């Protein structure tokens, strides 16, 4: 029983921290916020060189073969930096390809992703906004050369920079997965402006989008467990990012409480502020326990791996919203300004709360498991 990180894991976290402090400063993130693309090609290439884009991919396809714990360590640091970009969606699609792909699909996509040539994303919500893999309503119809997909996908992240889309659709066999070219005919994007400019979302309409037979991922009808895995891992990763945002806000609040003076004293000496900071630390530390327990459970294929993922998503969603929000409260007026950085992390945490299964969805999964 050991809940601490190995020296290699600590090294990864520290080097990621140092790199992002240098290359993903808040001033730079603000430039990407204002950019129509919303993320940086240069940073993406550097992340590839650091091995981050292949972190958990098999070594035979250019990856490092590391696990969810290492991935969570990295995502925590990305959350801490309010990094905007398709890192996590790309990694989730890569994992799905590594799990279910044919040799051709793996060779086509995994090295391209690991080297930074291709980004990827997936669509998880259909028109009725139900996170359950069983609720997929987009239709996949057979054609002489493969399939054609028709339907509506909502709140798709980073589709405008993706080289490949992972799209679930209902075929006669059940729910199936398809690797779709974002430039394919029949795709129509409607970009939206999220309150977090570091989260780029768009609705997607599919009107008889042609997909080749060899671009089905896994056997048709076998998508439900794969989608469940994707949402499960997605939830753990999102929780790790939210944890990073919370830690950043906690650090900023504590730092500010030590130097900001009112009534002739640092405000951190007042119990009203100190107790708030202590509660924020408590929530952050509990979030740490939730994130890394869940990450370990995925790697160890623990009996409660699915439960732990939902627990982490639900708990850290609430906790990070509270911690980031209370950091604004501790700062007072300056915390409510655009120029001060706090809102970047507050918004990032909030944006992630609504992804990879919202709290309602995961609470229901928890009850199904705990009340059986």
């Amino acid at each position: 029983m050991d809940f601490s990180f190995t020296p290699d894991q600590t090294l990864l976290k520290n080097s990621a921290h140092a790199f992002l402090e240098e290359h993903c400063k808040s001033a730079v993130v603000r430039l990407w916020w204002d950019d129509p693309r919303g993320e940086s090609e240069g940073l993406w290439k550097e992340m590839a060189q650091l091995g981050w884009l292949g972190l958990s991919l098999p070594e035979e396809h250019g990856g490092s073969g590391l696990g969810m714990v290492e991935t969570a360590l990295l995502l925590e640091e990305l959350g801490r930096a309010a990094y905007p970009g398709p890192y996590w969606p790309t990694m989730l699609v890569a994992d799905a390809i590594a799990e279910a792909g044919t040799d051709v699909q793996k060779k086509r996509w995994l090295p391209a992703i690991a080297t930074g040539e291709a980004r990827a994303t997936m669509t998880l919500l259909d028109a009725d906004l139900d996170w359950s893999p069983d609720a997929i309503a987009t239709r996949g119809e057979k054609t002489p050369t493969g399939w054609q997909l028709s339907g509506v996908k909502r709140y798709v992240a980073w589709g405008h920079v993706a080289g490949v889309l992972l799209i679930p659709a209902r075929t006669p066999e059940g729910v199936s997965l398809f690797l779709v070219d974002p430039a394919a005919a029949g795709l129509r994007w409607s970009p939206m402006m999220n309150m977090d400019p570091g989260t780029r979302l768009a609705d997607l309409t599919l009107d008889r989008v042609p997909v080749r037979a060899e671009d089905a991922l896994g056997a048709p009808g076998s998508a439900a467990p794969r989608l469940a895995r994707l949402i499960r891992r997605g939830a753990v990763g999102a929780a790790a990012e939210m944890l990073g945002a919370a830690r950043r806000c906690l650090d900023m609040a504590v730092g500010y409480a030590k130097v900001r003076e009112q009534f002739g004293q640092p405000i951190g000496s007042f119990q009203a502020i100190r107790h708030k900071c202590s509660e924020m630390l408590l929530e952050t530390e509990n979030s740490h326990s939730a994130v890394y327990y869940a990450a370990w459970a995925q790697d160890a294929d623990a009996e409660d791996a699915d439960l732990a993922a939902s627990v982490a998503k639900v708990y850290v969603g609430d906790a990070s919203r509270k911690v980031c929000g209370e950091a604004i409260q501790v700062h007072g007026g300056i915390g409510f300004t655009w120029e001060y950085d706090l809102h970047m992390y507050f918004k990032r945490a909030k944006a992630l709360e609504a992804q990879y299964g919202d709290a309602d969805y995961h609470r229901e999964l928890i009850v199904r498991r705990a009340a059986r």
Partner: protein
Amino acid sequence: MDLNYSSEDRAFRDQTRRWLEANVPTEDMKTLAERKAWHRKLYEAGYVGMLWPKEYGGWGATAMQQAIVQDEMARIQAPPAINGLGIGFIGPTIIVHGTEAQKQRYLKKMLTAEEIWCQLYSEPNAGSDLAGLKTRAEDAGDHFLVNGQKIWTSSGPIADWGILLARTDPKVAKHKGISCVLLNMRQPGVEVRPLKQITGHSLFSEVFMTNARADKSDLIGNLNEGWAIAQTTLGFERGGNSLGRVTRYAIAFNQLVKATKQLKRQGRPLIEDPVIRAKMGKLFAELEVQRYAGLRVLSALNKSDSPGAASSITKLSYTEFEKRYYETALEILGPWGQMMTAREEFEEIDTASGEAGTWATAFLWARAGTIYSGSSEIQKNIIGERVLGLPKEVRADRLKA
């Protein structure tokens, strides 16, 4: 990072489970003598005083083994050992600060529950501001004469001995004039009056000391250095027992599930109501996080002896959770959750397991956790100052000193 139990730990768990299944009493214990006999049996099996050094009658076990025993006892709902304050906190204090003669005299009888111990710290006017205590211990040659009043004393009515904080020098700053001494509770100068708690039971008490006698040979550490000793006592008290506590919460959750399948509102079981399901999902998520945090504490305890100020985070976390837990449970259960059934009085509260009884008792008892052993407000002060490094507050008593 590896959260699997080692094969040794798994074997130890199996062995503990087998022993408990064979030995846990099947009938409710009604007298202190019966509780003491069960305690003795647990001790002889190696399940009491597990972390104590062997030379003082302990078993030199690991924190993990202790946690496993507590976990298994919770799982089978075995009656806990008694003398919890003595074995958990007072004994370890004597081991750290006591003389060899004190260790020989007191420790073994504490472990075997031949002598029951209580803690004489809080006073009517010294709660969170413990250092403001007024009870005096005056030098009377070979002993101290003790006069004053203590309050919220758990196990007071059954205690043979108490660990006392008293003022031995009223002229110096308040933290500097306090000493720690052991007090025989079975003497004419000590009067114990039970206090009735909000649960309806009388498990703590007031203690009045009128010219009570404490031998100087029972002074723990040096004269006027009792404050620092009290800090180590409190340090032992926070943290620990992480698995057993969560297992009790999990057992309660299963009972909640069962109740929500049986109780109906508007013609359907509560468990089918999506609003109730959402509440239960949130509750179980929090419960699981308490478990993960407990494993993290246990992992840290296995590496170093003292959790230090970080144990305040643990105490704050589980006591505040426990309040939310039973508040939500009673909200779900409605009037049914408020029913109390008559039961025998227990003679001792084990703060780790609380008072046995109904949902209502658990709901009421949950109010104790955020007060005892340093209130939530005190824990937040400790976390703020010692973990986050926030500046100390300006306090009226510090300005005077």
